[in-house]
């Protein structure tokens, strides 16, 4: 069965795997940050990712703002949208079971997607690459934009991880994750910290959406098709573990790509198969033990 595996095929799929993994990692990281601090299962993450791509597309098509401007503006717009969402629909249910946040953000997903679909239709909208062309590496062709996506996402993940694990601000987040009451009793406005954290996580989703726009089509359902996989990544990495989400995201992207080369029939299933194994043998997640006692 390994006959006919050319280097082009192998490295081509590996690159696709790393690209997909970059999105898995960035999205799973945002979900993990939000869940870790607020215990909100943010089902709307996919819709917020899609909004990032749409805002980038709108900025370009309506206001002529190029990709590089959108890379800064669109995540801010999506983060502000997220903050409004937190204030309006998440804060009122903060004291209820986590399940309610899942339901409420799922409902928000349906509304957001429905409105976008009604306004712009379901077909994908093209967003041309800001970095056309690429370089021939001999064994494969590397498009510049894809290289940019990989580098940018690795840097974003690393920077976020450093922020949370090695700064004072991150210490507040980690502490509030363990015991918000104690942190608040030190005089820290924990409710506002939660709002801003949600905004930050949602802004990361928006940023991923802008990155994705030139690669995938900009369409209302681009996020929801990804969400199931992202949830699998978060479950495998351990809910709330930042490093777990990042490492699992890249690893599963690569595993998925390699499965396409060696056993294409299983490519769509492999992540869920791994999730199943993880849930059976390590239900708290592969990385959960490394961050909390």
């Amino acid at each position: 069965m390994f006959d006919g595996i050319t280097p082009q095929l192998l490295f081509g799929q590996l690159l696709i795997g790393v690209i997909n993994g970059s999105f898995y990692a960035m999205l799973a990281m945002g979900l993990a940050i939000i869940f870790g601090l607020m215990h909100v299962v943010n089902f709307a993450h996919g819709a917020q990712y899609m909004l990032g791509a749409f805002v980038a597309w709108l900025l370009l098509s309506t206001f002529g703002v190029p990709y590089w401007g959108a890379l800064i503006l669109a995540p801010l717009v999506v983060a502000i949208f997220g903050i409004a969402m937190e204030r309006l629909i998440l804060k009122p249910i903060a004291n209820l079971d986590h399940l309610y946040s899942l339901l409420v953000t799922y409902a928000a997903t349906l509304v957001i997607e429905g409105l976008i679909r009604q306004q712009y239709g379901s077909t994908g909208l093209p967003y041309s690459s800001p970095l056309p062309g690429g370089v021939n590496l001999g064994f494969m062709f590397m498009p510049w934009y894809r290289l940019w996506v990989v580098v940018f996402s690795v840097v974003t993940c690393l920077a976020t991880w450093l922020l949370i694990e090695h700064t004072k601000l991150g210490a507040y987040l980690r502490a509030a994750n363990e015991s918000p009451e104690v942190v608040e009793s030190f005089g820290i406005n924990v409710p506002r910290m939660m709002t801003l954290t949600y905004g930050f996580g949602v802004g990361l989703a928006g940023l991923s959406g802008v990155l994705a726009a030139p690669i995938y089509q900009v369409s209302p359902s681009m996020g929801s098709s990804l969400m199931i996989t992202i949830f699998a990544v978060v479950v495998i990495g351990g809910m709330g573990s930042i490093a777990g989400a990042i490492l699992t995201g890249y690893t599963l992207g690569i595993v998925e790509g390699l499965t396409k080369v060696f056993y294409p029939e299983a490519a769509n299933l492999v992540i869920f198969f791994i999730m199943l194994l993880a849930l059976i043998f390590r239900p708290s997640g592969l990385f959960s033990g490394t961050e909390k006692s």
Partner: protein
Amino acid sequence: MLDDTTAPLLEVRDLRAWYAESQALQGVTFDVRPGELVTLIGRNGAGKTTTLRSIMGIVKNRKGSIRFEGNELIGRRTFQIARLGLAYCPEERGIFSSLSVRENLTLPPHLKSGGMSDEELLKAFPNLRARAGSRGTSLSGGEQQMLAIARILRNGCRFLLLDEPSEGLAPVIVKEIGAQLRRLKAQGYTILLVEQNLNFARSVADRHVVIEHGAVVDQLSNEDLAADMDRVKTYLGV
């Protein structure tokens, strides 16, 4: 010694508090005057912890009145109450396992002038220095308790609410904590201390407030306690 006419720093009046439907405090009334060290004593489940948590606004469903320097605390949120100058050390100590000892120690922000600097804290609690890089929860129970008390001094709050700092600790460490509390009192801190260990309470306090079934049933000075240990022992059921 302070006389009874000094205006109270903290005035708790008819404090009632609820966990969901169940009422944990039935009407707690007592005062703490500036510079005093007052204990709340009483059996397990009497409502001592709930009283501290209600003062801090962690238990939100509460009625009655709690005044600190004349400011009503009921209706304020926990972080706002802290910013008025109250520092709280919970019964479970609240040491964060995902933070190093140093991060734990330096977490509380400077809210008021007069908060201890990190250097002063490490000087006052020398065994924390050697362990500064270790995970907070890798410390022994006694060290964790020292850390929990030390870090709230960083805020600059002059009113300390301490929930059973002696609980589960070896006698030598309890002694050490007693020495720290006397030092803090000498520095002018006002302390409301929850205790079940009567000997420890006697060794540090000016006055004792006895809580039973969510209400204050007795108040006595430290001298009265020494003279009438049996009376208090019946409250504690020991």
